[in-house]
């Protein structure tokens, strides 16, 4: 049986969802910025499979290249619903849909964590 580290898994998914919400917030805020291209985080399954290597900060003066947030990539224009004449590829409806997905997954995540801890505290009683 493969052990499942539920608390760790749930917390890394919550972190990924929060990072995705930030990427979506940035897309929506730049819906009218000329030349802005839609960005998104790497899918969670890919994040789980290859926890990508990042440079170790061995000194407090070392800079974190990602600024402490999960890295994002530009989404190709063919995947976006609209591309505007100004070179902007933000489709607000698409972003709203993504934000809805994130919110639902976050609600599910916190509900699972809650019930998991309820189970733990029940057995510990």
């Amino acid at each position, binding site marked *: 049986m493969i052990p499942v580290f539920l608390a760790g898994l749930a917390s890394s998914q919550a972190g990924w969802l929060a990072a995705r919400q930030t990427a979506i917030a940035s897309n*929506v805020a730049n819906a009218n910025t000329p030349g802005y291209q839609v960005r998104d985080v790497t899918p969670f399954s890919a994040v789980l499979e290859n926890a990508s290597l990042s440079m170790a900060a061995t000194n407090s003066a070392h800079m974190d290249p990602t600024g402490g947030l999960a890295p994002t990539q530009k989404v190709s224009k063919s995947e976006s619903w609209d591309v505007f004449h100004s070179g902007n590829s933000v489709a607000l409806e698409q972003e709203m849909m993504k934000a809805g997905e994130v919110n639902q997954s976050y609600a599910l995540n916190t509900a699972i964590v809650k019930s998991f801890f309820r189970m733990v505290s029940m057995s510990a009683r």
Partner: protein
Amino acid sequence: MSMIDPIKASMAIAGSGLEAQSARLRVVSENIANAESTGLVGGSDPYRRRTITFDNVMSRAEGVKVVRVKDLGVDQAPFRLEYEPGHQAADEKGNVKHPNVNVLVEMSDMRETNRSYEANLQIFKQARAMAAMTIDLLKGSSS
């Protein structure tokens, strides 16, 4: 300060979007209000349509990339000429220069501004809901 909680970052970004769109709405309202503002003396220039553009910039305070007003400019399109000899701003031929504001364009700009503002507000509300769900984890485990 480079580390910031992603949910707080979402709120900061959505907030910057709200601010940018309200600045845009201010420019649109200025254009609509001055759609018929002609000059005061014969042959003088009327109100010139103002424009606004945005840019995605790094905010040092929050450590995230936010949207800011890049430039407030003026539209160089030609003025609309109308023959009104009795007008105070009429030139020697009786033509009056009217502002280069097209109210229809301004109205569609206003609708777009409104839509973008609402989208930013929605993102802000969702980020707030996510923060509330996280805090609720603490409440749930004690009862």
